[in-house]
């Protein structure tokens, strides 16, 4: 048996309110309150999100500004004289001591005595003073130096026979140019 849906009352919002079950009415009220609370919470969260976004934009702006400053520093033109001076100082400081000493050690035989080494960073030149008992050993030493990959040109600058001792000692000076490492 079905219900008869016959009602002569005109439709109105108030009628709808009275026709709803009290439980439904309370549920609707509770739902509305919850919606309101949720709205408040959402608004608060959105405001927080907004402020965070603003902060992020601010930080990004600051980072961009900082980057721009760095770029501008790099772009300022440098005085040519100053540049050469600075470069010379840097080159002097950047002597490849380890490589030079390793190469020398590898090339120097027992028969040759090293007296002094003087580097000239501006010309990448190493002035070596050494002694040996014979000229043959000196020639051997020169070729050994030339075979080192570090040194490019190796020249014998001068040689003399030291006479202060009984057996003649050959004192000689070599200029070796080392290859600059690629910057």
């Amino acid at each position: 048996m079905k219900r008869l849906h016959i009602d002569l009352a005109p439709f109105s919002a108030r009628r709808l309110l009275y026709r709803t079950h009290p439980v439904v009415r309370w549920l609707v009220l509770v739902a509305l309150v919850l919606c309101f609370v949720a709205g408040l919470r959402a608004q608060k969260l959105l405001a927080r999100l907004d402020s965070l976004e603003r902060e992020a934009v601010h930080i990004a702006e600051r980072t961009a500004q900082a980057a721009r400053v760095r770029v501008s520093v790099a772009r300022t033109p440098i005085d040519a004289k100053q540049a050469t001076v600075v470069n010379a100082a840097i080159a002097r400081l950047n002597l490849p001591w380890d490589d030079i000493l390793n190469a020398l050690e590898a090339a120097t035989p027992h028969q040759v005595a090293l007296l002094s080494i003087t580097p000239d960073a501006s010309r990448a030149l190493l002035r070596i003073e050494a002694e040996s008992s014979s000229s043959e050993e000196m020639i051997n030493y020169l070729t050994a130096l030339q075979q080192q990959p570090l040194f490019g040109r190796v020249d014998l600058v001068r040689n003399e026979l030291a006479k202060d001792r009984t057996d003649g000692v050959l004192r000689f000076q070599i200029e070796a140019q080392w290859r600059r490492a690629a910057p």
Partner: protein
Amino acid sequence: MRKRLMPAVPAWRRGHCRLALSHGAVAALRVDERWFGAARKAAPQLAQRLLPDFATAAADELAAHLAATLDEVGGKGLPVYATFDDELVRYFIVTPPQNGARMQDLRAAAGVRFQMLYGEPASAWHIAADWQAGGPFVACAIAPRLHTALQLAVKMRRGCLVAVAPNFVAAWNRWHRRLASDAWLATLQCRTLTVGLVTGTARRARIGAVRTLALPDERPPLVWLREQLERAALLDNVAPPAVLHVHGPQIAAWQQAASDEPGIAVRWCTTGNAAAPALALSSISAVGTVDAASSVGAVASPFAQTTPLSALAQLAWSGAAP
């Protein structure tokens, strides 16, 4: 300040009004409910009033009487549940057209059916129905003057019409769950029995016809009722019922013989709200009687407290309600 504010919030009052309209009379019942605890339900206020003839009186005049009745029970601003006596309503069954596609088709079918049955133009009546496109449905027609008057009266008192239903429809909606497929429902009111004939079986059961039987005297015997019901079943080509549920005042002659004799049994639909009998004995502050001798208008007079509710007040109580 408080005095100025208080009349502005009648909506906070909980409670409702029940109106019953019958030929020449109206009854209003105000039921108060407290905010917490139904146990402290106050005694309902009752007012009754004679009405001018519906056929001649204007809607405004009727509305004024209805509004005055509402005033007597203090029903200003309250939701109103109105019940029409079955005598004011014409029930009929409408079969929807085969090719009907729209609501207008159903309305037109109802109008044609009404004109065919009663020989009056349907435009002069207000037709309401349980619109169904798939099968025959119950429709009822009411005088538009009465309908308008009721709306006007409730509007004048800033109330709200929540439900307006004819007595049989209200009773059916209240009891339809308890009806078995071989049972019929009838409403009894002032020597008129309105019977809903049920056709179909089990799940497909529906109201096949609504017939009105006039009682020959106050308490006709059960035999008469059985004869009438069987006749109605034969006329409408449906199986007679095993049980007839009657909604309305009880008739002792029908009840006593119901248990031992074979044939159609009669059971009474006692209102679900047990307060109804107690209501008759509780203190009613403004009891009026619908007395033929009393003039139209001044009817509300304090009466003996044990006066049982009149038939119309019973109708108001047991009709459309939340």
